[in-house]
């Protein structure tokens, strides 16, 4: 069964509004990665979180890893049309395979 759940499936926002996607694992993860996939493109690595409770920022993007290392979130402040795409989380246990979430498709209206 699916190891990593991601919500919401879709999010439509007005430009300037904030956006958050959530990722939950049924088991403790050793690390979690976030990727962005533009329409017609391939996943592009954004960031990796390793430590419990870790928070990392990239300009308008804030990534969090839960204390129990079972959940994570990606928050975008003041969305722009360039943020359009599908955001995936990918969790790993030990050095094993990565389990990708089903993704959150973000649409930003100008």
């Amino acid at each position, binding site marked *: 069964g699916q190891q990593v759940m991601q919500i919401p499936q879709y999010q439509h926002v007005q430009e300037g509004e904030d956006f958050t996607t959530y990722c939950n694992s049924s088991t403790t993860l050793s690390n979690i990665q976030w990727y962005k996939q533009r329409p017609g493109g391939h996943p592009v690595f954004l960031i990796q979180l390793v430590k419990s409770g870790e928070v990392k920022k990239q300009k308008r993007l804030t990534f969090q890893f839960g204390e129990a290392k079972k959940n994570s979130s990606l928050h975008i402040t003041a969305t722009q049309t360039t943020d359009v795409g599908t955001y995936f989380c990918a969790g790993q246990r030990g050095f*094993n395979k990565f389990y990708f979430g089903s*993704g959150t498709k973000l649409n930003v209206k100008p």
Partner: protein
Amino acid sequence: DAGVTQSPTHLIKTRGQQVTLRCSPKSGHDTVSWYQQALGQGPQFIFQYYEEEERQRGNFPDRFSGHQFPNYSSELNVNALLLGDSALYLCASSPDLYNEQFFGPGTRLTVL
């Protein structure tokens, strides 16, 4: 550095046929993973190669097989194609087993 390259870009096959997809990893990367991405879904892990050996395998039937060559390039073979095998096949390379993965542009396989 050309990044991860994959060939062909698109492929159309009929049920029962066999297909071979190819991947060249990013320079300096020795780990190659293959993923299947159905429309509207996240990438599903097929298998991973490191040092020319299959290190890990996802929940895919034996019809899916692969190979890694001494130069770290890799092939994905799928036998007895089914309609449900239609998907984007992504190759990802990484410098080790747990760091960021660099994805190629993918091969769009259509099975008729």
